[in-house]
């Protein structure tokens, strides 16, 4: 049985259709990601699943429960990190953990969670004094207090610096390795690609693609790129005739060759060398989910 089963979810705010006919299933033990630009409907969807918002249409089943009617029972069994939520400024870390643990029928030892997430030496710090990364760690601990079967992370890494973001990724994987199912949203394609077993790409309230990151990239025949700089004049013709090469762009001394196939880089380098072109700073760029999004929607991710 799927952990989450969503059928034809619809949510409308006034005249705006925030979520339009969204259906998918999340399986036990996977990290499932919803990715898309801001305002695409990610948070609305996740909050309908969590039971914090009431959908206008469709059906939702989470752990076999209906979030609309079984909200309290559901919240005993899931954990959430929310976007735009805070704790009181002057609450201490240990007080928050002790308090939130008392809300559940069953809760794990928060001391060891605090230890594991590197918050032990902040035990007596006031919430307002914590850095953004530490606040998010605290919210992860809050989401794990009841030993939930399913954990939600809504834009967990937004506003964090790159290093803190990487740490968060490790923590999320760690949560999954404890046998929990993870549902997350992000507007960083890179994050979804790195972290998720399966990704649903959402744009303007609709799911436009859903698969593993690898399949999404492969299925769409998205080009890889070979990028290099040249000194002096440069003839494109020899490259054009190569198998697998698509477009070639030149801007100043920078050249980008778009193409596919395992041998692309080798072939390009070969041609350049034999035709005596002096090139430097050559690198390849593999297609990413960003390219998938671009291919599917015809636009860059709007940030």
């Amino acid at each position, binding site marked *: 049985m799927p952990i989450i089963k969503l059928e034809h979810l619809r949510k409308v705010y006034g005249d705006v259709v925030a979520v339009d006919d969204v259906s998918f299933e999340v399986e036990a033990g996977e990290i499932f990601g919803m990715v898309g630009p801001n305002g695409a409907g990610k948070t609305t969807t996740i909050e309908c699943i969590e039971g914090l918002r009431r959908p206008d249409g469709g059906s939702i089943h989470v752990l076999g429960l209906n979030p609309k009617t079984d909200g309290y029972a559901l*919240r005993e069994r899931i954990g959430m990190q929310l976007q735009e939520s805070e704790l009181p400024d002057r*609450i201490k870390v240990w007080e928050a953990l002790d308090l939130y643990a*008392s809300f559940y029928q069953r809760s794990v030892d928060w001391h060891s969670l605090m230890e594991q997430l590197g918050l032990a030496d902040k035990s007596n710090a006031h919430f307002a004094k914590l850095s953004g990364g530490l606040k998010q760690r605290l919210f992860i601990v809050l989401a794990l207090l009841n030993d939930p079967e399913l954990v939600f992370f809504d834009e967990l890494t937004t506003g964090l610096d790159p290093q803190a973001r990487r740490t968060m990724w490790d923590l999320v994987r760690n949560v999954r390795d404890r046998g929990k199912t993870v549902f997350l949203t992000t507007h960083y394609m890179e994050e979804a690609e790195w972290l998720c077993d399966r990704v649903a790409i959402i744009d303007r309230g609709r799911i436009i693609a859903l698969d593993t990151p690898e399949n999404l990239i492969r299925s769409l025949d998205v080009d890889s790129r070979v990028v290099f700089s040249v000194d002096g004049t440069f003839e494109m013709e020899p490259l054009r005739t190569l198998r697998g090469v698509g477009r070639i762009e030149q801007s100043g001394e920078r050249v980008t060759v778009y193409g596919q196939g395992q041998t692309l880089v080798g072939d390009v380098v070969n041609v350049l060398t034999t035709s005596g072109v002096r090139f430097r700073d050559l690198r390849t760029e593999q297609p990413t989910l960003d390219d998938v999004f671009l291919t599917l929607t015809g636009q860059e991710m709007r940030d």
Partner: protein
Amino acid sequence: MRGLRKLMLVELKLFLREPETFFFTLIFPMVMLFVFGSIYGNKPVEIFGGRGTVDISVPAYMGLIIAVTGLMSIPISTATDREKGVLRRLRATPVRLQTILIARIMMYFVMTLVGALLLVAAGKIVYGLRFDGNALYVFLAFIISALSFFALGFVIASLAPTGRTANIVGMALFFPMIFFSGATIPWNVLPDGVQMVGRALPLTYVVKLLQGLWFAEPWNEHLLKVAVLAGMLIVGVVVSAKIFRWE
């Protein structure tokens, strides 16, 4: 009611860590008592019906503390918690809304009561405060007064979109009420015009009820005041239950 005890304890700690609420609830009324006590003493005077300044001020300042909690502490902290997402975070757990509200109301009541008891102790020790009434009756009047103002506070908190707005609305109600109700300046020295305004303010009924019972006047002279406050309590609870928002 899972979590009620811990929630109350944490709310109490947070209240005591907030310098503004701590000062206005527990310190400020005592400062007032010492300032006016040192100017006028507590000798019986005619204008107060044979009572001293401190005698009439202690029950009046109880009204002041109730107004601080109901019109400032509750609206500002509740609206701020909603604005910042503190309530949202609570709602992501199985804790019930009524548990949160009961914990907060009990905490506010305890702190308001502590403020009142500090006043009584200071008045008694320093100025030989006189008390003719029945302590249980005064306590009952204190309960209904406090709860009716708390209910008003939650209505303001429900209506105000942000902590700032709640602050402004609370202040706009607080200052006229404490000056025109007898809570700070004794009712008998207020000019007629101000008394006219004062009769429209609920805090006036709190002050008169507490002072009346303090000096052993019978309940049946104060039924209208009790009715006004009970009405405010009922309307406040019904309205805020209808319009309260988590976010």
